[in-house]
C-alpha cells in the first residue's frame, strides 16, 4: 500500500443488464491530485465514476465484482463492505454532473440542503458556511442580493458553480466530476477549471472529460477507458 494512496481498485468488473462494461481493473489514485479519465463516448466513463460513490446502485440491475478501497481517516476502507452505507459514502465522496442540477428551491436552500440531510440544524453556522462556500466558488458577489431567489433562474455557469458549492458543503474528501464544463461556454469553463485547480490542494478529484486541452491543463494523471479496460496514458 502506497503512503499517499487515496483510492485503490482491485480486480473490478462491472456489468449492467448482463452487458460487461468494465473488466478486471486494478488501479490506485493518489490523494490531493486530479486524475482524469477520458475515452470514446459510450465506453462507461460515467458508470466508472459512479462506482466511487455507489450511485449506480440507485439505477438497479448493475453487478460489481472486486474490491474498492478509499482512505478515510488514515485507514483504507472497503466502500462496498458491510457496515458502510451508501448514504454515508456519498456525503464523503461528492459528485458534480455534466448538466447542472439545482433543486427546485432557492439558492440558499440549495446550498444548505446537504447540511439538512446530515442533520445539522444550527442556522447561524449554516449562514456562515453558505457565505464561505459561495466565496470559494466565486459566486457570492453575483448572488449575494438574491440568495432567496429560485436557483433555476441562474445562468448555466452559475448553476454549475452553485452545484459545486453545494457538493463542497459537507467537505468531501473526494470529488467526482462528470464532464462538469461540457454544457458551459468558454468563460464559464475557465472559471470552473480555476476552481478545480484550487480544490486540488485539499482533496482528490476524479475528472471525466472529453477535452484533451482541459485534461492537459488540469490533470496530474490521465487514464483512458477503452475496451472495458483502464490504461494510463500520461
Amino acid at each position, binding site marked *: 500500500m502506497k503512503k499517499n494512496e487515496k483510492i485503490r481498485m482491485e480486480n473490478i468488473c462491472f456489468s449492467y443488464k448482463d452487458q460487461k462494461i468494465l473488466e478486471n481493473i486494478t488501479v490506485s489514485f493518489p490523494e490531493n491530485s486530479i486524475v482524469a479519465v477520458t475515452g470514446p463516448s459510450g465506453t462507461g466513463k460515467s458508470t466508472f465514476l459512479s462506482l466511487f460513490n455507489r450511485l449506480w446502485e440507485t439505477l438497479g440491475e448493475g453487478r460489481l465484482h472486486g474490491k474498492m478501497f478509499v482512505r478515510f481517516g488514515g485507514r483504507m476502507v472497503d466502500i462496498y463492505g458491510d457496515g458502510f452505507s451508501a*448514504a454515508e459514502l456519498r456525503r464523503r465522496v461528492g459528485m458534480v454532473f455534466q448538466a447542472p442540477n439545482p433543486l427546485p428551491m432557492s439558492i440558499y*436552500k440549495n446550498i444548505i440542503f446537504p447540511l439538512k440531510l446530515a442533520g445539522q440544524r444550527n442556522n447561524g453556522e449554516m449562514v456562515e458556511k453558505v457565505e464561505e462556500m459561495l466565496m470559494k466558488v466565486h459566486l457570492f458577489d453575483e448572488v449575494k442580493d438574491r440568495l432567496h431567489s429560485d436557483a433555476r433562474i441562474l445562468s448555466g455557469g452559475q448553476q454549475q458553480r452553485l452545484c459545486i458549492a453545494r457538493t463542497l458543503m459537507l467537505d468531501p474528501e473526494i470529488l467526482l466530476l462528470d464532464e462538469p464544463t461540457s454544457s458551459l461556454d468558454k468563460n464559464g469553463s475557465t472559471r470552473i477549471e480555476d476552481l478545480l485547480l484550487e480544490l486540488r490542494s485539499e482533496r482528490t478529484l476524479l475528472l471525466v472529460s472529453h477535452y484533451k486541452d482541459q485534461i492537459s491543463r488540469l490533470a496530474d494523471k490521465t487514464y483512458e477507458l477503452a475496451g472495458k479496460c483502464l490504461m494510463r496514458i500520461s
Partner: protein
Amino acid sequence: MRLLSRLSVTVFRLAAFGSGLLTIAVFLMMLSFGWPLLTDGQFFTLLAGEWNPANGLFGIYPMVVGSISIAFLALLFSLPVSLGTSFVATVLAPPPVRRFVLGIIRFMAGVPTVIYGFVAVFMLVPFMREQITGGSGLNILTAAIVLAVLIAPTMIVFFVSGLKNVKPEYCLAVDALGARPVQKLIFLLIPQAWPSIVSGIIMGLGRAMGDTLISLMLAGNSIAIPASVSDSGRTLTAHIALVIAADFSSMEFKSIFACGLVLYIFTVIVVVALRWVSPGQDLRSI
C-alpha cells in the same frame, strides 16, 4: 399529414368540450327533475329535515350524514395506508418487492366491488357483530372499512404515478448528496408529487362518496340519523338505488334527484377546496 394533424386536434378539442358539456347537462337534468321539490318551499327542509314519506317529508339529511361519515371515515382509514404503500412501492422497498406490491395493487383495482362486499358480508360483518360493534354488524364502521380497501388502489396508483414522475435529475442530485430513502421522500418526492397526491385524495374521496354497492350491502340502510360509527346508516347513493327500485313518479322519487344534486355539489366543493389548499410544486416545506 397536416390535415390529419388538424383533424386530430379538432376531434380531441370536441371530445374535451363534449365532456365538459356532458357534466353540465347532467347537473341541469338533475336540477330539472328535482325542481318540483326545490320550488315547493321544501329546499331547506329537504337538506335538513327527516325522511318520512308517509307524512310528506322527503328530507335527505340522514343520507347526507351517512354519506359524509362513511366517505370521510373510509378516507381516514385508507389515506395513511395508501401513502405508506405508495412510499414502499416507489422508494423504500427493494425493486423486486416494489414490483410485487404494485402488481397486487393493480390486481386489487380490478376486483369488482361486489366481491369486496360479498367477502365482507361473510367475514367482516360477523366479526364486527361479535367482537366490535354488536348489533347486526351492518353499520357505518363496517362499510367504511371495506370502502377504505376499495378506494386504496385508486389513491395508490395516483400517488405512485406522482412520486415516479419527479424529474430524474432532481433524484440523482439528492441521491448524490447522500440522502437516505426516507429523506429523499420527505425533502424531494412528497413536495414535488404533492399535486398528484391531492388528486389521488380527491379521486379516493370521490369514489368513496359515489360508491353505492358497499354502503348498500354493509351500512345497514337505516334512515335514522346515525349517532355513532356503530350505528346503521344510509348513504345518498344507496338511497337513490333503493328508491329507484320501487318508485318512478312520486315526490319521493323526485327527491332522489335532490340527492344527486347534493352529491354533485359536494364533489365540486371538495375538488375546489382541495385544489385551493394544495400548494404548488416548489419545495416549500424545507
